[in-house]
């Protein structure tokens, strides 16, 4: 993990109507981390998040960005807001221009970019969120998920180091929520520090590197998600419910099963837990092969060609550009989220699978499969399409 990028030291804030919103909070966030602030409504999550880019100034305490206390003069705030992008809960309130292009260009134009730079920044950030071709669409014609992506693109166009998202999945259907979380995962792999607030503990649990449990303006617990969400008393105090997988693990443990130390964060982990619990040895013999197709490095083979040569192989796509590519070639996808784990599950059943993804995520696939293999003493072969 990188050096500390954001730090709060004993922050206090009182609403104008006299209620304490934040009561003596201290924490730090490291560069490249994925942090989830989790708590019930009114816990002070949004208020705290708005302090990260200087929209709210704390009454007491100090917030440091890059180890320097935040200054509240116009020029310093401008610089801070360029580096800390904020995505509001309601995208309708964040999208201010009549077309997608104009809205995404708003930040770059105000930062004084040249016309060519603005165009490049808009093109790049729309591609990042998978909305290329939406430039001339008016926001009122977009779906909730698309509006959320436009709001995110508007912030990405300023190329911030830190992305702060207030309730990023509110109002989205389950598939839209998964898409947004996967996009945040992708952005994190590109080096962004991502901070979200949520009360959807099931979404935060597998995603976050670290979770901060907030209630009544104070921090209840701050740790890796399985520890932060693993104390039933604290979870009850925060008026949340424990993630299902974690609860299941705890229940199995209470019944005296011998379980691996690492608590499960995904269905794959859970399967491994159950497998150990009941047979104390993994249930696979001949694992299947996982092939990775990199859309950024053409291997001289179209997806359709690859599919034709490997009939019946399950295909998953990770990342918006990968999904677009599959759509362009009319390739039906078996998995669109949790793709690596689902392909490992396939491999454990002895079946082959293909992961379509972007260049930056190829290493991530290999690393995750290797890590699983190390933990479970099994080797699942991973190869790049075209190099078979």
């Amino acid at each position, binding site marked *: 993990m990188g050096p500390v990028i954001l730090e709060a030291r004993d922050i206090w804030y009182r609403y104008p109507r006299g209620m304490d919103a934040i009561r003596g909070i201290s924490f730090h966030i490291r560069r490249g981390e994925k942090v989830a602030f989790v708590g019930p409504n009114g816990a002070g999550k949004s208020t705290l998040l708005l302090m990260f*880019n200087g*929209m709210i100034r704390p009454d007491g305490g100090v917030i440091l960005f890059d180890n320097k206390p935040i200054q509240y003069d116009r020029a310093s705030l*401008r610089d801070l*807001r*360029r580096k800390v992008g*904020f995505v*509001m809960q*309601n995208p*309708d*309130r*964040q*999208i*201010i*221009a*009549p*077309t997608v*292009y*104009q809205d995404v*260009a*708003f*930040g770059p*134009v*105000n*930062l*004084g970019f040249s016309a060519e730079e*603005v*165009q490049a920044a808009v093109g790049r950030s729309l591609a990042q969120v998978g909305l290329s071709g939406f*430039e*001339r*669409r*008016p*926001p*009122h*014609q977009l779906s909730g998920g698309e509006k959320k992506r436009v709001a995110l693109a*508007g*912030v990405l166009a*300023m190329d911030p180091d830190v992305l702060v998202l207030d309730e990023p999945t509110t109002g989205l259907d389950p598939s839209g929520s998964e898409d947004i979380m996967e996009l945040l995962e992708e952005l994190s792999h590109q080096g962004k520090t991502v901070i979200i607030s949520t009360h959807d503990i099931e979404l935060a649990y597998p995603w976050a590197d670290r979770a901060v449990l907030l209630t009544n303006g104070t921090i209840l617990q701050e740790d890796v998600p399985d520890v932060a969400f693993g104390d039933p008393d604290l979870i009850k105090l925060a008026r949340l419910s424990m993630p299902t997988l974690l609860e299941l693990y705890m229940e199995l443990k209470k019944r005296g099963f011998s379980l691996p130390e690492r608590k499960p964060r995904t269905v794959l982990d859970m399967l491994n837990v159950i497998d150990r619990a009941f047979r104390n040895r993994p249930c696979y013999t001949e694992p299947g092969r996982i092939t990775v197709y990199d859309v950024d490095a053409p291997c001289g083979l179209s997806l359709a060609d690859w599919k034709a040569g490997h009939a019946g192989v399950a295909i998953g796509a990770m990342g918006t550009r990968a999904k677009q590519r599959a759509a362009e070639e009319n390739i039906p996808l078996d998995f669109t989220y949790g793709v690596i784990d689902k392909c490992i599950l396939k491999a454990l059943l002895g079946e082959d699978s293909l992961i379509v993804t972007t260049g930056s995520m190829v290493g991530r696939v290999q690393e995750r499969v290797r890590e699983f293999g190390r933990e479970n003493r099994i080797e699942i072969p991973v190869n790049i399409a075209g190099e078979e």
Partner: protein
Amino acid sequence: MYEELLEDIAHKSALRETHTGVKIVTGAGAIILCLLSPGFLAPLLVAAVLLMALVFLARVDVSTLGHVYAAPALFAVFSVSAIVLVAGGGETFWQWQPAPWFSLSVSRAGINQGVLVFARFIGGTTGLVFIALTTPMTDLFSVMRRLRVPDEVIDLAMIIYRTIFMVMAHVVQVYGAQVMRLGYSTFRESLHSFARLCGAVFISSWEAGEDLIRAMEARCYAGKFAVLGKDRPADPLSLAAVATFFVLTGAVAVTTADVTLF
């Protein structure tokens, strides 16, 4: 409850990608030509050509066009009837005297005048409808910029445009919530509900305005707003088509200047 907006039709129009300037010149030119034409045939020709362009080139639904024309057509029928009855001069064509103190008469000059006004109305309205159904407001902002409209006015227009749809969505939601709870069941109740609707929308608009300022500040607002996408170049084929249209209708206007119905 769900209304289709002219703006949405314009966004879906098959002529959407045609150069904005070409479409505006066509529509505005058609209106001017209809107003200048001394005969009624040229405006009718203008209307026929533009309607065909709307149906076959822009692929606008015929029933949509019917809806768009219904209200102005009703207005035109009443206005033209009044003109026909009031305008005098020339030979009397028809007369009716139901009572000694009341008579109605229509002269040939009155009919000719009414027909000309009606034709101009149809032609002019079609010019306007042509612009409205092929050119979304978002494309007009860049035309405003080219016409040297001050940036402040364009910025304001853009914010208003964006806000209208948010306010409208809120009005639809609140109105729906009121109707579901029988808010408009009696006249008295309707007045109360409407007042509450206005109040709720006013407050939410105020809050949206404050959020707008926050959103702009969070994105480094430094006084710049009106950035516009690149214009597409005018396609020679459409330029030639528009030129032919004006030459043809202009020629008809000149040659049929003296043609009247009676």
